[in-house]
């Protein structure tokens, strides 16, 4: 069975990420973000959202363990700043209902949602510049970089929360990610 662990960055919705994966039928576990990456046996990693990058523990080290990684909200921002992109505060807080435009129909993570999708968000910061090798895959009126992908390295980020009930087609994002993780 495919096994995907969720690295807990103390987000309010972290447990819903675990639930979404459980409901999608994969083996999953919530893992403390101070856990040494070498102790993890998984086919994929979700970096959860959270209140503060200073409480992200060893999250960034999970980018190096050679399995697909999905960064959600803060998880995406950790991915961006660790790999050479830039994170800053947004001009407009992204809360609740946001309509996201998909920029890359072929993207393995969000391409299937094209042309647009309605999501639920909760963030003040956002990714301002992509890291090298990443493609800008989605945008919205309130946040320029809503999603980013590096399909070669199987690293994906979404600024919104696919795990909450109010995000339409959130399950699809997890299914797309699971497809990248399946052995």
């Amino acid at each position, binding site marked *: 069975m495919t096994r995907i662990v969720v690295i807990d960055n103390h987000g*309010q919705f972290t*447990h*819903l990420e675990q*639930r979404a994966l459980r*409901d999608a039928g994969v083996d999953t576990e919530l893992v403390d973000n101070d856990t040494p990456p070498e102790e993890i046996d998984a086919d994929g990693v979700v970096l959860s959202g959270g209140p503060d990058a200073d409480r992200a523990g060893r999250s960034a080290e999970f980018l190096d363990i050679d399995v697909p990684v999905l960064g959600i909200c803060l998880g995406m921002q950790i991915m961006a700043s660790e790999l050479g992109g830039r994170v800053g505060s947004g001009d407009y807080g992204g*809360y*609740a209902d946001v309509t996201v435009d998909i920029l890359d129909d072929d993207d393995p993570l969000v391409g299937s949602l094209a042309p647009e999708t309605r999501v639920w968000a909760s963030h003040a910061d956002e990714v301002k510049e992509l890291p090298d090798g990443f493609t800008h895959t989605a945008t919205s009126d309130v946040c320029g970089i809503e999603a980013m992908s590096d399909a070669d390295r199987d690293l994906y980020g979404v600024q919104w929360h696919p795990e909450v*009930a*109010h995000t339409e087609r959130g399950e699809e994002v997890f299914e797309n990610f699971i497809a990248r993780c399946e052995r």
Partner: protein
Amino acid sequence: MVDTESFIEDAVAEIREEVGDAHAVIALSGGVDSSVAAALAYEAIGEQLTPVYVDTGLMRKGETEGIRDIFSFMESLRVVDAHERFFDALSGVVDPEVKREVIGEQFIREFEREAKDTDADYLVQGTIYPDRIESEGGIKSHHNVGGLPDVVDFEGIVEPVRDLYKDEVREVARALDLEEVVAERMPFPGPGLAVRVIGEVTQEKVEVAREACHVVEEELEEYDPWQAFAAVVGKGTGVKGDNRVHGWIVAVRSVESRDGMTARAQELDWETLQRIQSRITGTNDNVARVVYDVTHKPPATIEYE
């Protein structure tokens, strides 16, 4: 989703094994979680369980009578009238987190007395999964987590629904044939109407909140909200029958949600909103205006405090 049949079987077996021939108590709030926990425990150990319901005076209209009714099959049910003691403890308290603490402490005192009186060795709690998460994350302190076990020296704590989400607890409630009113009941916060009045908790404000909540629940039934209620948020000027009124401002909130983690403010039609407004201002002399809250969660939470 949870497989209710095997869940109930396992939960009952677990409680039976854990508690054995000993006595157990549970604090019954009337909400789905503690009702399901109580029903499972009753199924497992029968009258070895004493359910205790504390009437804090912060309950919804008709709530206490409803509890007596629904749980009349449990002969051991105790209803404690603690109304005055709660209002005394809350006098002068305005900070929302302190309010929760004061209510939690008073509740523990009430419950401690009853628990000691029954000689219970075990505590059954209706803690569900998000309760544990929210308390760990520090967003809001939760009445089900911590507290009780620190003051009463129980041999063990049994939390039969600890791994379930709210929607799953409701599934179990239905499978247990708990009357629909419990299974479908809207979530109601542990501190009750105290967090539906901003600032100090007074008899007057709580009375307004209680009547207004009742109107909102009645009028919005057809919208099938996850949660619908009214809160007393401050004072404003009005004019009633040519007289100036400096009266309460009542905020109406109605949201749809799956699990309470995110919520969407419901779109209500104007006539419904006006009927709510009219009933609340018309039957409460001290209410000057009614407003509707259009904020989703996030950025707002569902309750006001």
